[in-house]
């Protein structure tokens, strides 16, 4: 499964609609200090369900709604949508791709038909979305339909996006791995186990 497209609208320093497409391989985001690069990362972790405003550098979740600038008024809401491609259909087993070892498969169940342990597979594209209004109301969406946070969470768990702790390294945080306490390092390993 892979990321396909990201839409940002009203989130942090993006008052206007903005869109990024992701291909395979490496996407680089560049630009001067303060122009909004880390805000793009925040948008991705936010739509994937980040619940802590502090992890997004805010004091309260409302801080992630565009707050205005010299020339612009604040927006009334923030919306981010992330399109995912080749997502394993919820309820089906995840494919064993060469080189990709999925260790949470039940080893007692042997791979079914197909070579290289490839299981017959149903995948689809799916778009998860999240909105926050200044009133405090917030919505989660799957393919444009309002749903609960838990539905988004389940979808992500099944598609292998559930473990976040080491798929994102935030700015300035690389040093913390070595200065963290032994117990915290253990939980890094436990999360992967």
């Amino acid at each position, binding site marked *: 499964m*892979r*990321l396909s497209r990201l839409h940002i609208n009203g989130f*942090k*320093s*993006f008052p*206007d609609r*903005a869109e*990024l497409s*992701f*291909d*395979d*391989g*490496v*996407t*680089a*985001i*560049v*630009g001067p200090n*303060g*122009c*909004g*690069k*880390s*805000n*793009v*990362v925040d948008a*991705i972790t936010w739509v994937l369900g980040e619940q802590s405003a502090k992890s997004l550098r805010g004091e309260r979740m409302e801080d992630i709604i565009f707050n*205005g*600038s*010299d*020339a*612009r008024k604040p927006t009334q809401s923030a919306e981010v949508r992330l399109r995912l491609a080749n997502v394993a259909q919820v309820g089906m087993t995840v494919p064993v*791709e060469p*080189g*990709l*070892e999925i*260790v949470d498969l039940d080893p007692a169940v042997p791979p079914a038909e197909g070579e290289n342990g490839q299981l017959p597979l149903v995948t689809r594209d799916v778009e998860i979305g999240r909105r926050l209004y200044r009133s405090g109301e917030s919505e989660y969406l799957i393919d444009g339909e309002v749903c609960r946070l838990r539905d988004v969470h389940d979808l992500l768990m099944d598609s*292998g*996006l559930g*473990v976040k702790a*080491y*798929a994102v*390294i*935030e*700015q*300035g945080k*690389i*040093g913390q*791995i*070595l*200065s963290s*306490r*032994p*117990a915290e*390092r*253990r939980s890094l*390993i*436990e999360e*992967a*186990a």
Partner: protein
Amino acid sequence: TRERFAEAFAQINANFEVTFTTLFGGGKAGLVLIDQENQVESGIDIIAQPPGKRLQNVQLLSGGEKAMTAMALMFAIFKFRPSPFCLLDEIDAPLDDANIGRFVEMLQGMQSHTQFILITHNRKTMEIADRLYGVTMEEPGVSKLISVQMN
């Protein structure tokens, strides 16, 4: 899950020995359970010895060496349990050119199974991008995305 942890620990440790020596061009590294008697709860220590140097407390390593060691560990975990994508925000900031070169080579080795999204100010890192987005703020306070297609 005690076995799952033990299995994960063993594999990640083995991966770490490899990623570290690849990023450092030598040396040795590993993970150690602090309390061997109590594997169920024991914390984990990181052992790291750059090539030619004596083994010391990792805190004595330089800023760049610590970043490379932490990256080696992250990639070791990643190879055990790959995520479809990986977001790295300016992790090349403390690195000199030679280390950025080795970091970038390791990314290139992993990118066929993983989408990498990198934020960087560094030219060497930008060069391996298949796709480049520039973010600008011509209007103060308002971010704008510009796509720069490469390859």
